[in-house]
């Protein structure tokens, strides 16, 4: 079995996780910029993080023969300080031509505030200006439905946004169809306590079809499982889905979306 982990926060994980992922068939990992668990205090803090994502982490993954790609942004959880956000967004273009940067992400909303909307709009403008793919985080729990609607409306209001170049992540049963219906890609995140479990993820694939959907573990420093994607293959096979179905969802789908960036090339 082969798969792509299209959303993993590997800076929070140990090298044991890299080894386990490669052993399970992982062919590439993509790491969106994330919140550190605390608010970074300066532009230089973000610059260091972007260097970690574009220099150190690819080298760490390469020790396990695993191609590592990344996405850059300021996380929605840090969007309340509009001045800092403006200054951080100003340095992102300095990193966009680096060989493993795929696009702008994971941008989006956290608590659905006006400041978060302002910073989301600035990120969208940045992505359009530099012709970047977009990876969108949708809010947690009770905020997800409203946030997803706000995000979709904002993306659709921007003439430069091409829906096929945008993935809206962390969809659940109440948001997946509206994302797909509007031409975007949808990401299903497999978490032990929130978001989706492997059985629910396969339910969504059975109900909505397998087109324009990827699965990810979004493993980070919280309760999460870096092997959640390959473990979901077992649930698919148990339901009677073919190995071709598994390969399409776990490998070919993310490969197709990510290949819209000329930098996403695997040795296969």
């Amino acid at each position, binding site marked *: 079995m082969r798969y792509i982990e299209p959303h993993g926060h590997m800076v929070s994980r140990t090298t044991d996780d890299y080894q386990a992922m490669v052993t399970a068939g992982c062919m590439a990992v993509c790491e969106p910029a994330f919140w550190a668990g605390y608010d970074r205090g300066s532009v230089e803090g973000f610059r260091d993080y972007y260097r970690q994502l574009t220099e150190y982490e690819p080298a760490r993954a390469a020790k396990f023969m695993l191609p590592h790609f990344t996405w850059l942004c300021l996380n929605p*959880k840090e969007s*309340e300080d509009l001045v800092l956000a403006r200054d951080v967004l100003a340095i992102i273009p300095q990193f966009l031509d680096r060989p493993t940067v795929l696009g702008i992400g994971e941008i989006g909303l*956290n*608590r*659905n*505030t*006006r*400041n*978060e*909307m302002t910073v989301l709009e600035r990120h969208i403008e940045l992505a359009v200006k530099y012709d970047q793919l977009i990876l969108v985080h949708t*809010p*947690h*729990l*009770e*905020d*997800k*439905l*409203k946030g997803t*609607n*706000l995000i979709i409306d904002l993306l659709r209001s921007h003439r430069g946004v091409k829906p096929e170049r945008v993935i809206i992540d962390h969809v*659940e*049963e*109440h948001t997946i*169809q*509206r994302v797909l*219906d509007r031409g975007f890609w949808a990401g299903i995140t497999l978490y032990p306590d929130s978001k989706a479990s492997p*059985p*629910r993820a396969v*339910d969504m694939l059975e109900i909505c079809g397998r087109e324009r959907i990827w699965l990810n573990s979004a493993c980070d420093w919280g309760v999460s499982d870096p092997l959640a994607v390959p473990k979901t293959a077992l649930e698919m096979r*148990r*339901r*009677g889905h073919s190995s071709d179905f598994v390969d399409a969802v776990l490998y070919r789908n993310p490969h197709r979306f990510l290949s819209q960036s000329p930098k996403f090339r695997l040795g296969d």
Partner: protein
Amino acid sequence: MKHPDSKRPSLPKRVRASTPRVSAAAAAIVEVGFIPVRAKLLEVAAFLDRVDRHGVSGDFRCVALREAAAVLVDGRNRRARRILEKFSDPTTEPDTISTGKAALGAWSGKLAPEKVRKPKES
């Protein structure tokens, strides 16, 4: 001959006898899934007992949980989607200020009813 790894979980004889003819994969949904889901349902029941016993059953999250649980037995489908919608903030405008970084799992409803609009359907 099929590779042994391709076998689906087999049903016990007494279950096979009482189950209408379904595919092995469909039968496995119950065979493999029932015990873990039974355990989760008991956790819900025990949690509701516990919050009653400790006098915190009026917390808005417990209220939301009881309302959501009613969806399980209303005889209609799309239960997961409808439960998620029940827990969701039904308003449509961005909030002026953030009330903190973390969501709580259920909407507290701290908004005048006239400002609440039904979320858009997909």
